[in-house]
């Protein structure tokens, strides 16, 4: 009866007793595993190992440190067995080349590792006892059976063929890169083997060592070299656009390769080298091409360029600079093309700007994925050409830009059959706000806008209250409450005036014989100056004025009304015309002159001057407008002198019954604009001085350079002050004794309390 008791009489289990059976079992596992391996055989072999290890006397070396285990002889028999197997493999492999070497290696590796996982289990008793003890005591070159098998494979087979094997593997990969089909599972299998050979080490950091040293280094070098050659060759024979396409494709393919058969740990290093070789080494050529793509609107190509240059350090910087310059140049060119017309046509001016902005905004979105650096370049470029272009040069003034933008707003907000519907106008206003954002001289815009708004309100010309309100809201959002405060007050004055008028009409107004409207406007909020001339009001109007004056001062004692006759208007009806009667919408000054003809058939210039008490320039302008509109005949035609005789033109004809004759002469307009600009300059000087005082009051002492910076920063929301002007203002303040130059330190100012 068999038993596990070592003491009882049992067959011997020396190494020579058990080895033959064991060896044939191992041989079967190594070479014939496909035929199957029964549980019974497994148990038999396991028992063999067990019996040997439990019955044999252990070899004792040196000091015995507790129980010793048998097993050394078995261990080295196993080693020899495996080494012999390796010799056979090496022999067979020596004659194999190319793919066949790889196939042979993979096949043998798979077979070997599968067999050894079973063999490891069979030798488990040895693993748990003798081997474990040897390892604990630090004996070198003793491993658990599975690890041992890998060590033997590596030393006796792999290390001797690894250079050939790696070379063949790399050439297969190169073949695949060149477009041929290869057996990727073969490559994957071989590479996997490299990785698993690394697992012989205890330390986890060393697990990829075999892969890295014996494969990866060579792989990366070969990849670099391959792509270096390919890219140099390709770029010399093809356009940059085609090159970029190729690079995108190659990078995608390499990513795929990494997933399919190369180990993913190579990814970072490989991609870094590819970026260097494919992109960085050719960046000059790529950068040079950018301008061409921009000019030709090649969105797809630019998008590709962006993607690829994003991968290398500082790849995009030159693009941003080129982009900014190009936008500025395009904007300049577009405006230059239309410069002469745009100077006088606000709509054309703004639309030209918007076209450029929209075009390059689209490029930023579609080619550069809204990259902040490119958005910034767009802003910088737009800012430059919007504030400095052919139109501003011709006007001799960078403030021409905000002036035109304000005037375009006026065109849109005025009643006109040419204007589109409300929603569309709102859309255009939103676009205008884009341009507004870039305007540096926002104070100029404000000044012009309030002037044209005043005219719209006084003349009742607004297309839509909703749009007027929207405009104010958007300006407020952009520039703050203070910027739009005066404008808002203008609107409230209008509604207050309406209320006032209604009360007046109910009260006194109905008895006047004249349909009278009065707008009462708070002096500080409106950009209106008092009349530049005296004027004798016709008696009908004088009565009206008195009536209203009484009405108002009764309500609001202590308030003074200044009548702005120069912006007032009215309507007169003819009684002399041949076929039909006309209604003339005219200015009050025109009315004054026309009413004179109720009592006179013919009047000279100087006679009219006496009667109306208008100053010469105003009289001449008014008479010119009456002549141009064919309401009056002039004895000297266009050139009006003091002796020119005027008569009513009884042959006046017009298709309309109501005729507007209150035409503005162009010189007057240009002159008015010039004055507006001058006003802005004066205003700015005061702003600068106020800022200087504010800054110095809080800082007490400041260097010239810092003071300049502070002033520029404080005022940048409203306008860009010129350095020369700031210097002048500093001198003014020193004269006025607000500031003083420090005696001890150079270029330092101190505040004088």
């Amino acid at each position, binding site marked *: 009866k068999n038993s*596990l008791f070592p003491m009882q009489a049992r067959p011997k289990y020396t190494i020579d007793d058990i080895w033959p059976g064991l060896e044939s079992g191992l041989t079967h596992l190594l070479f014939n595993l496909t035929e199957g391996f029964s*549980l*019974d055989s497994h*148990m038999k072999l396991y028992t063999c190992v067990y019996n040997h290890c439990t019955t044999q006397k252990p070899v004792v070396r040196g000091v015995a440190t507790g129980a010793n285990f048998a097993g050394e002889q078995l261990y080295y028999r196993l080693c020899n067995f495996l080494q012999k197997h390796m010799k056979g493999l090496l022999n067979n492999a020596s004659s194999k080349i190319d793919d066949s070497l790889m196939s042979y290696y993979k096949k043998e590796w798979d077979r070997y590792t599968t067999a050894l996982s079973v063999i490891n289990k069979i030798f*488990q008793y040895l693993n*748990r006892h003798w081997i474990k003890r040897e390892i604990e005591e630090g004996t070198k070159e003793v491993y658990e059976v599975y690890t041992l098998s890998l060590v033997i494979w590596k030393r006796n087979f792999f290390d001797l063929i690894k250079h050939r094997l790696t070379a063949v593997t790399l050439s297969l990969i190169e073949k695949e890169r060149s477009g041929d089909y290869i057996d990727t599972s073969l490559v994957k299998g071989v590479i996997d083997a490299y990785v698993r050979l690394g697992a012989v080490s205890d330390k986890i950091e060393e697990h990829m060592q075999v892969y890295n040293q014996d494969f990866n280094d060579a792989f990366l070098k070969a990849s670099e070299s391959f792509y270096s050659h390919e890219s140099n060759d390709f770029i010399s024979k093809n356009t940059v656009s085609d090159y970029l396409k190729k690079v995108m494709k190659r990078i995608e393919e390499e990513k795929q390769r990494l997933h399919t058969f190369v180990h993913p740990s190579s990814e970072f290093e490989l991609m870094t080298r590819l970026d260097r070789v494919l992109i960085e080494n050719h960046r000059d050529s790529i950068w040079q091409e950018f301008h061409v793509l921009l000019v030709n609107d090649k969105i797809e190509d630019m998008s590709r360029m962006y993607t690829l240059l994003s991968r290398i350090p500082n790849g995009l910087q030159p693009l941003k600079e080129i982009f900014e310059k190009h936008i500025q140049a395009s904007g300049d060119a577009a405006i230059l093309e239309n410069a002469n017309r745009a100077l006088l046509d606000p709509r054309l001016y703004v639309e030209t700007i918007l076209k450029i902005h929209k075009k390059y905004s689209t490029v930023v979105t579609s080619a550069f994925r809204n990259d902040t650096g490119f958005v910034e370049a767009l802003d910088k470029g737009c800012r430059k050409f919007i504030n400095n272009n052919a139109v501003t040069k011709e006007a001799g003034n960078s403030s021409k830009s905000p002036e035109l933008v304000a005037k375009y707003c006026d065109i849109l907000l005025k009643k006109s059959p040419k204007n589109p519907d409300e929603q569309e106008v709102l859309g255009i206003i939103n676009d205008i706000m884009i341009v507004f954002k870039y305007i540096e001289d926002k104070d100029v815009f404000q000044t012009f806008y309030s002037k044209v708004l005043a005219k719209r309100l006084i003349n009742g010309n607004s297309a839509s209250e909703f749009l007027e309100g929207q405009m104010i809201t958007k300006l407020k959002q952009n520039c703050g409450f203070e910027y739009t405060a005066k404008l808002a007050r203008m609107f409230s004055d209008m509604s207050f005036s309406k209320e006032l008028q209604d009360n007046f009409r109910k009260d006194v107004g109905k008895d006047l014989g004249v349909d009278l409207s009065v707008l009462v406007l708070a002096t500080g909020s409106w950009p209106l100056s008092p009349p530049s001339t005296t004027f004798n009001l016709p008696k009908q109007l004088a009565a009206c004025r008195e009536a209203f004056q009484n009405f108002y001062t009764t309500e609001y004692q202590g308030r003074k009304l200044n009548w702005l006759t120069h912006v007032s208007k009215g309507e007169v009806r003819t009684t002399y015309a041949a076929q039909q009667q006309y209604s003339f919408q005219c200015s009050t000054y025109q009315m004054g002159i026309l009413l004179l003809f109720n009592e006179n058939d013919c009047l000279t210039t100087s006679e009219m001057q006496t009667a109306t008490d208008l100053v010469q320039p105003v009289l001449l302008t008014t008479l010119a407008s009456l002549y141009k509109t064919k309401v009056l005949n002039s004895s000297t035609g266009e050139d009006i002198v003091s002796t020119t005789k005027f008569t009513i033109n009884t042959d006046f004809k017009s298709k309309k019954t109501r005729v507007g004759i209150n035409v503005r002469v162009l010189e007057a307009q240009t002159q008015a604009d010039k004055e507006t600009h001058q006003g802005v300059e004066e205003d700015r000087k005061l702003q600068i001085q106020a800022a200087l005082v504010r800054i110095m009051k809080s800082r007490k002492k400041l260097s010239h350079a810092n003071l300049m910076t502070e002033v520029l920063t404080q005022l940048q929301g409203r306008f860009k002050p010129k350095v020369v002007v700031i210097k002048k203002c500093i001198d003014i303040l020193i004269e006025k004794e607000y500031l003083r130059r420090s005696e001890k330190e150079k270029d330092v100012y101190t505040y004088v309390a």
Partner: protein
Amino acid sequence: GHEFIIDRRPFSHTWCCRVMSDTITLVSAEGHEFIIDRKCALVSKTISSMLEGSFLENESGRINFREISTPVLEKVIQYFYFKVKYNNNTSPIPEFTIEPEIALELLMAANFLDT
């Protein structure tokens, strides 16, 4: 709960199990066949490593222990079930009694089976 019914008839010991499907047959040196839950057999590392990746798939799970006597094998199997029942169990674990006559053999068997 689990009912153990020990039938001492020779040559045929059958544990009544909860589940009759996944089973393994362990055969003692004398030829007694013990049909047990596969799950319980896996308590032995030696048995479990043999069973994983078995290369003869259609072979019935049958292992011959020519060196383990019947009473010892029986006790070992008792232990397998004991271990499975009380593993990760929070209720108090009863003592697993071992008759002194078989203690040494049981120890050797445990060593052999890596249990």
